C-alpha cells in the first residue's frame, strides 16, 4: 500500500482508478481521462495535488540564499505574492528539480517542488543553507488542490464562500494569503486559468466536497499529463533530469543570466555550455499520420544523429498525437518517428500546442 492523501477516500468513493505514483496511491482517472481533459479546457476540473511538497523558507538571508539556489532570480519578485518558475541545478548545471517559488512576505518564501524528488530536494536545500541564517520547514500539515479551467475561478470562489471573497484581485502568477491557514495561488499545470489552493489537511475533504457541489469535476493524473503536455509544460523525470541542463530542455528562458555577478549554483557550467553551443534542444512534435507518440521513441532528422521522445501522448484537444522530443539543434521542421518499425512523419514545432482552450498550431 502506498501513501495516501487526505482525499484518498473521496477518490475511491468516486470510482477512481488508483495507481502508484512515486509511492503515492493517486487517481489516474474517474472513468474517462479524455472527458476530464475536455472538462478542464471547457469548464472546470480539480486535481488532488497533495502529494507535491510545500516548503516554507524564512529568515533575513532567504533572498540571498534563493538567489544562489535557483537558476531563475527571485529578485525579479518585487511585489508580495508574486510567483516565479525556476530550475534548481547542481554544480554541473544539471536539473535537480523544477519548482515554483512564491514571495509570501518579507523574509518568507514558499517553494512547491515535485513529490518524486522530495528527499533529494530537502537534503540539497539543507546542505546549501548551512552558510545562511534561515529556517527551512516542510509543510506536510498542508494539502493542495488545483482547480483549473475557464470557469475554475468563479466556481472555486463559490466553493470557498466567505473566504473566497476578494480572490478576484489575485493577478496571474500571484498568491494570496487569505487567512492564517488558507493560501490561494493563480498558478497551475494545465495552460488554463485557475487556482492552486493550499490549506490544512483537516480541511481538504470539506473543500473538495464544496467544489463538487459547485460543479467542479474531479480529474486524475492522466488528464493532468495530457493537459500539461498540450500547454507545453515540462515534466521532471521525463523531459529533464540530472543528465541535462535547462538549455537542452526548452527552459533557457528560466535562466536569469543578468546580473552577471549573481553566482547561482550551476552558472559556470551553463555559461560554458552556452558559449560552446548547445548541442541538443527540446522541441514539440505533431504526428501527421495516425498513431500515438510515446516516450523513448526514436526521432530521425535527415543527416543528424537520432533524437528521442521525452513525453509523448495523444492530444484530446487537437485529435492528434503530440510529443516533446530532444533532438540535435538545427533548423529542420520535419522529422520521422519510428513506431513499431515504421517511420511516420511529424512536424517539428515550438510548444505550446494549446493555450486557454485554443490550438496554437
Amino acid at each position: 500500500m502506498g501513501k495516501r492523501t487526505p482525499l484518498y477516500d473521496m477518490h475511491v468513493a468516486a470510482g477512481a482508478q488508483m495507481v502508484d505514483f512515486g509511492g503515492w496511491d493517486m487517481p489516474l482517472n474517474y472513468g474517462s481521462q479524455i472527458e476530464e481533459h475536455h472538462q478542464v479546457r471547457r469548464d472546470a476540473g480539480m486535481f488532488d495535488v497533495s502529494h507535491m511538497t510545500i516548503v516554507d523558507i524564512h529568515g533575513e538571508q532567504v533572498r540571498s540564499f534563493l538567489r544562489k539556489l535557483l537558476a531563475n532570480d527571485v529578485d525579479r519578485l518585487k511585489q508580495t505574492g508574486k510567483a516565479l518558475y525556476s530550475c534548481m541545478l547542481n554544480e554541473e548545471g544539471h536539473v535537480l528539480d523544477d519548482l515554483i517559488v512564491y514571495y509570501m512576505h518579507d523574509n518568507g518564501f514558499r517553494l512547491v517542488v515535485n513529490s518524486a524528488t522530495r528527499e533529494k530536494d530537502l537534503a540539497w536545500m539543507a546542505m546549501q543553507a548551512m552558510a545562511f541564517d534561515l529556517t527551512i520547514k516542510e509543510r506536510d500539515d498542508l494539502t493542495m488542490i488545483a482547480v483549473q479551467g475557464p470557469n475554475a475561478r468563479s466556481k472555486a470562489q463559490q466553493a470557498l464562500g466567505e473566504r473566497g471573497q476578494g480572490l478576484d484581485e489575485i493577478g496571474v502568477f500571484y498568491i494570496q494569503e487569505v487567512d492564517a491557514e488558507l493560501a490561494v495561488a493563480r498558478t497551475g499545470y494545465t495552460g488554463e486559468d485557475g487556482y492552486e489552493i493550499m490549506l490544512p489537511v483537516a480541511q481538504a475533504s470539506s473543500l473538495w466536497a464544496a467544489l463538487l457541489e459547485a460543479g467542479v469535476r474531479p480529474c486524475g493524473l492522466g488528464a493532468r499529463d495530457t493537459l500539461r503536455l498540450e500547454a507545453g509544460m515540462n515534466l521532471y523525470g521525463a523531459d529533464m533530469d540530472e543528465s541535462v541542463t535547462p538549455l537542452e530542455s526548452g527552459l533557457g528562458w528560466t535562466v536569469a543570466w543578468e546580473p552577471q555577478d549573481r553566482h547561482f549554483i550551476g552558472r559556470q557550467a551553463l555559461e560554458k555550455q552556452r558559449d560552446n553551443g548547445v548541442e541538443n534542444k527540446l522541441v514539440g512534435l505533431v504526428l501527421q499520420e495516425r498513431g500515438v507518440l510515446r516516450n523513448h521513441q526514436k526521432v530521425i532528422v535527415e543527416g543528424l544523429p537520432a533524437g528521442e521522445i521525452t513525453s509523448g501522448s495523444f492530444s484530446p484537444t487537437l485529435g492528434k498525437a503530440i510529443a516533446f522530443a530532444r533532438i540535435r539543434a538545427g533548423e529542420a521542421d520535419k522529422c520521422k518517428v519510428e513506431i513499431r518499425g515504421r517511420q511516420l512523419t511529424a512536424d517539428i514545432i515550438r510548444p505550446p500546442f494549446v493555450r486557454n482552450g485554443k490550438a496554437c498550431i
Partner: protein
Amino acid sequence: MSNVPQELRYTKTHEWISLNDDGTVTVGITDHAQHLLGDLVFVELPDVGGTFSEGDDCAVVESVKAASDSYCPLDGEIVEHNEALSDTPELINQDPYGDGWIFKLRPDDAGAYDTLMDADAYSELIAEEG
C-alpha cells in the same frame, strides 16, 4: 465489475471470440481489457487476407495511456476488419462486444473454437488478476 457474456469464448490475453454461422469467428477485446486500457485513441488493424497463428500479435490497440498488442486466438486467415475503428476507436470503450469488434477470422480448423476458454473460466482468471 466487468461484463463477461456467457455465450462468448475468451483468451488469457483478454480477447473475446464469437462463432458466426458461416464458420468464421469475430474477435475483439473484453470489457475488462478496455477498462484497464482506458480511453482508446488508435487501433492498428490486421490486413484482410493476412494469415496468423494462434498467439501471434495481429492488432494494436492504443489508449492515451499505453499501446497494447492484441493476439490472434486461433490459426487462420483474416477475412474482415472493423474499418469504423480507424475513425472511432472509442467504439471499443463504448461497446466492446458489439460495435467495437476488431476483426473476423476464418479458422484453419473448424473445431478449434470449442477448445477456447469459456466465460466461467475467464471470469475466474480476471478475478485472480484482481
